[in-house]
């Protein structure tokens, strides 16, 4: 029993003024413990919807999601989520943000303190522990958000385009950092992105999704050795293949947008 996340027969529909949108259709996916999986696709392909369903924020209309053998019915600290918008609590200092999950678990103050200190050190945030989020850059904030989730010691990390709002250099250094943490701590990671390069750089498996209805178009295992070199011919071959897969979905997405605007 080494599956971490099992998604079987999941459908998700949303009612809208223009009719029912099928966001997810017949999704079946099995993720092993310690695997790093990227969900890749254009916006509107349902990759965030799928992530939110695993997180328990918005349950599937049909089908079942199991995490470590338990059906998902609500959000929980066993599936830590990192949001693109950081979602740090601005009224808490960096240390308070990182320790909040432990406070909720009612750990003794001294334990929280030492755990938080260790995590801040791991993410090179120690000197900012008493600062408020507004004093930090985007990259620093996302480090804090990652530390906050790691504090929970959850076996699964869910990441919703976590580096999408960062500049290229910061993004790259956080990707390195994430890989280091992932290999050190052996977490299962489900990572949503629309960046092909990011997915090749990070993932063991890349799950390409189609635009409405959101289905799994292809499930690709990445076997390139780590650390991955984005200049290598193998990297670029995979990048070209994925580009083709994604761009036809992107074209459908743009078509749909254009139609929606002209019929309005």
């Amino acid at each position: 029993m080494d599956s971490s996340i099992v998604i079987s027969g999941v459908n998700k529909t949303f009612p809208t003024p223009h009719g029912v949108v099928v966001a997810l259709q017949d999704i079946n996916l099995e993720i092993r413990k310690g695997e790093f999986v990227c969900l890749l696709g254009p916006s509107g392909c349902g990759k965030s919807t799928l992530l939110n369903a695993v997180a328990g924020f918005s349950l599937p209309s049909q089908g079942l999601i199991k995490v470590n053998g338990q059906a998902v019915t609500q959000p929980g600290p066993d599936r830590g989520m990192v949001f693109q918008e950081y979602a740090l609590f601005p009224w808490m200092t960096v240390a308070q943000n990182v320790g909040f999950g432990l406070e909720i678990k009612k750990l003794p103050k001294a334990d929280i303190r030492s755990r938080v200190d260790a995590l801040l050190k791991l993410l090179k945030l120690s000197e900012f522990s008493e600062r408020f989020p507004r004093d930090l850059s985007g990259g620093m904030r996302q480090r804090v958000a990652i530390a906050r989730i790691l504090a929970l010691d959850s076996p699964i990390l869910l990441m919703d385009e976590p580096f999408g709002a960062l500049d290229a250099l910061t993004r790259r250094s956080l990707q390195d950092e994430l890989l280091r943490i992932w290999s050190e701590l052996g977490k299962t990671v489900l990572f949503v992105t629309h960046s092909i390069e990011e997915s090749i750089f990070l993932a063991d498996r890349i799950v390409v999704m189609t635009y409405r209805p959101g289905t799994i178009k292809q499930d690709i295992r990445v076997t390139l050795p780590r650390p991955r070199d984005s200049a290598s011919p193998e990297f670029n071959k995979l990048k070209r293949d994925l580009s083709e897969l994604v761009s036809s979905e992107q074209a459908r997405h743009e078509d749909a947008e254009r139609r929606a605007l002209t019929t309005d």
Partner: protein
Amino acid sequence: MTEGSQRFKGVLLILAILGLWETVGLLGWVNAKVLPPPHAVAIKWWEYLAPQQPYDPDSGSRLTWLLSGELIQDAMGSLYRVLAGFIMGTLLALPMGLLMGASRQIHQLCNPLLQILRPIPPIAYIPLSILWFGLGNPPAIFLIAIGAFFPVLMNTIAGVQAVDGIFLRAARNLGASRSTIFLRVILPASTPYILTGMRIGIGTAFIVVIVAEMIAVNNGLGFRILEAREYFWSDKIIAGMLTIGLIGLAIDQAMSLLNNHLLRWHRGLEH
């Protein structure tokens, strides 16, 4: 233009107006009974402030004696009413606002009633408050509580409704219970709105106290300036008005300090 020289110009304007006012009096252009010159107001203000009896060690400490002046007694009376009414109004408005902001059902239930009551100015409650509570502090505090209640309530509701859903999702993801989310996320996230409401509320309370004192009680700054009118003491009226202005300013400054302290995490601080 430096800030220092701007501030200096502000002081200069005040001095210029005082000078003009004094000159108008000196030249006899206006009757001193109608508009007394600033120096007469200053003298009266001092008399009003200073203790009325010479110091007598038998009747109490020196501090009590120093505070025995009529102005200080009036100011303390007014401040007591403002604080009592404000605290009462806020203590009612805050939990109600949090509930109405957080629960759509409670909002739908209470909102029509509130929308009808809200436009009634606190002053319009004067006759009823006297019928219900008689004269003295109770009707005044009741009116002030009404004055403070609505601004705090409305802003608290708006504050809770404006809490970004992503904070709630992040908290649920960390395993927070409903009560933890309420106390540790919704409450702090809506403090900027709540404090704005409290600032407006205490301003309203200060307006209402002056009116209430003119009608229901026989001390306090509002009572005193109305009393002074009956004796045609225009210097005392103006001295009382200036005191009201200074205390109002002090209250607002204190609120602003509290604001800056509680919201030191917040972007775009008010100063």
